[in-house]
């Protein structure tokens, strides 16, 4: 037998992972600034940077005019930041859910949060028609949906991952039907177009209040998930296995669900249902940094942010009229997902 001397050292972080994070952060900065320059009204990158750092007196703002300033500060900045934060949140939420369900094919939609929030938002548009009401309705019904899912899942022999998925699918289908009912009842002239457009997802109505809601939920949810990073690793072994290793599976599961729910409900509230990001981003992140949540969550947040800024920029600048988010995420997402799947399956 070979001698058993060990040359292993405590893994702080390996060079490949460091390189990935450096590239991803640089890319995020480049994408953010590029997104601020693009749109119907082109603004030079140097002007964008000038406007961003104006208050710090760090940059020469010569040549920047007031229109540019207003476009960047009031219109594009909240929108780009909102898509950044929402993308980061959805990436993390997807990664955590895939581990919780030990299934690389689940996304944030699996628990019925999105359909629930969609119903709340659609109902609010029909009844009140204000932006505040829509956001509040979506957020509350998103949370309500997960509560119903948990209650349904509990009736029986006790909650398992399987009963949770099943009740998520059932409750999701129920709320989808309610969404259809709202669409059916909505006024064809006024309410219906805005409901449909909202359901397809868009950051067009971004403002600093929405950015605040999204940021708070992503920071709180993200911190909880990041805190659970190690226990989430163990949870991928399965409920029984994790329990036999000495983990309080029930508590970890509820903590994870709570964190994921507030992120997903908030994202639907501010931008409608955004599909695919939470499903694909964790796969791409895993390809680069592996399945350890210590790096996976951060990587998924970075990639999610980059992806959603790119998608939103395409949505608002490709054609004269805005394209809804879900259309672009699905058209771009499907081929990317196939590529990722082929690659990950090929490696096995």
């Amino acid at each position, binding site marked *: 037998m070979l001698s058993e001397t060990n040359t292993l050292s*405590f893994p702080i972080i390996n060079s490949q992972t460091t390189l990935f994070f450096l590239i991803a952060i640089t890319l995020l900065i480049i994408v953010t600034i590029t997104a601020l320059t693009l749109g119907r009204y082109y603004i030079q990158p140097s002007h964008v940077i000038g406007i961003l750092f104006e208050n710090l007196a760090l940059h020469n703002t010569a040549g920047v005019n007031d229109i540019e300033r207003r476009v960047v500060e009031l219109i594009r900045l909240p929108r780009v930041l909102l898509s950044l934060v929402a993308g980061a949140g959805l990436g993390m939420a997807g990664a955590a859910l895939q581990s919780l369900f030990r299934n690389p094919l689940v996304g944030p939609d699996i628990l019925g949060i999105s359909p629930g929030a969609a119903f709340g938002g659609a109902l609010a548009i029909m009844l009140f028609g204000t932006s505040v009401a829509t956001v509040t309705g979506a957020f509350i019904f998103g949370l309500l949906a997960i509560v119903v899912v948990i209650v349904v899942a509990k009736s029986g022999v006790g909650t398992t991952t399987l009963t949770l998925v099943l009740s998520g699918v059932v409750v999701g289908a129920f709320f989808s039907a309610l969404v259809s009912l709202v669409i059916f009842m909505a006024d064809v002239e006024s309410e219906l177009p805005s409901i449909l457009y909202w359901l397809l997802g868009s950051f067009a109505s971004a403002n600093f209040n929405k950015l605040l809601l999204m940021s708070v939920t992503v920071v709180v949810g993200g911190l909880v998930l990041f805190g659970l990073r*190690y226990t989430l690793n163990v949870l991928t072994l399965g409920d029984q*296995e994790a329990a036999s*290793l*000495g983990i309080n599976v029930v508590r970890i599961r509820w903590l994870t669900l709570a964190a994921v729910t507030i992120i997903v409900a908030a994202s639907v509230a501010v931008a409608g249902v955004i599909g695919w990001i939470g499903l694909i981003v964790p796969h791409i992140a895993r390809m680069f940094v*592996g399945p350890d949540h210590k790096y996976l969550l951060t990587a998924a947040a970075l990639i999610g942010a980059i992806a959603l800024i790119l998608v939103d920029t395409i949505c608002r600048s490709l054609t004269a009229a805005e394209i809804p988010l879900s259309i672009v995420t699905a058209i771009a997402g499907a081929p990317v997902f196939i590529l990722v799947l082929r690659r990950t399956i090929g490696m096995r």
Partner: protein
Amino acid sequence: MVLKVTNAGFHYSNSEWLFRNLSFQVREGELCAILGPNGCGKSTLLKALLHVQPLIEGQIKGPERIGHVPQQLEIPFDFKVIDMVLMGRVSHLGTFATPTKKDYEVAVKALNEIGMAYFSDRIFKSLSGGERQLVLIARAIAGESDLILLDEPTASLDLANEIKVLNVLQKLKKNGVTILMTTHDPEHAFHIAETVLLIKPIGNCQFGLAKEILTDSILSELYNVPIRSIKVVSPEESVTVLIKYDGIRERMR
């Protein structure tokens, strides 16, 4: 006394008792083997000891921290061997904690102990059945628990790997680790176990020293096939082997 089980009984809802009035104990540094035909509740008993599946009746007095080596473990993601072994440390960590340098050192030491340090960066999923089993044993060692439970550690392993795993268990026992394992092969019990627990389908279980329990008549009755043991003596040593396939040709005819 590391583990003491009194009058344990279990059945699934709306079905017959799987086992009942089952009492046994495992002393420190001992290896106890659980024998019984398929479906007699061996794995269920282990789950009860791990607090994963509560008993219907009876008491378990055991350590809080128990290491566990499952029969098979399918995982969806590509964790490295060292990550898998580190997971054995999770019972020492809080909900929001991550492994420290000390945990890492314990994990590496556990891999060294079974001669698998060279595998630490391999992907767990890509290992063979025998290698996986050894890694899971290392994970249990890394947990530094007072008792290690193994569920059929040699099931579906080839002969070389079977012997490798048994050697590792033997070595652990020498280092003072207390082990409780289920096995489908009474020969394992013969060679490495001090005590044996027989779970019989009818309900009357038997527990005692391996050399007293593992008689030809008891084993033949347990599995309902003729089994006899013979002593093979060579100049170096003498071993007892079981003749399990005695008369199989006649029976097959």
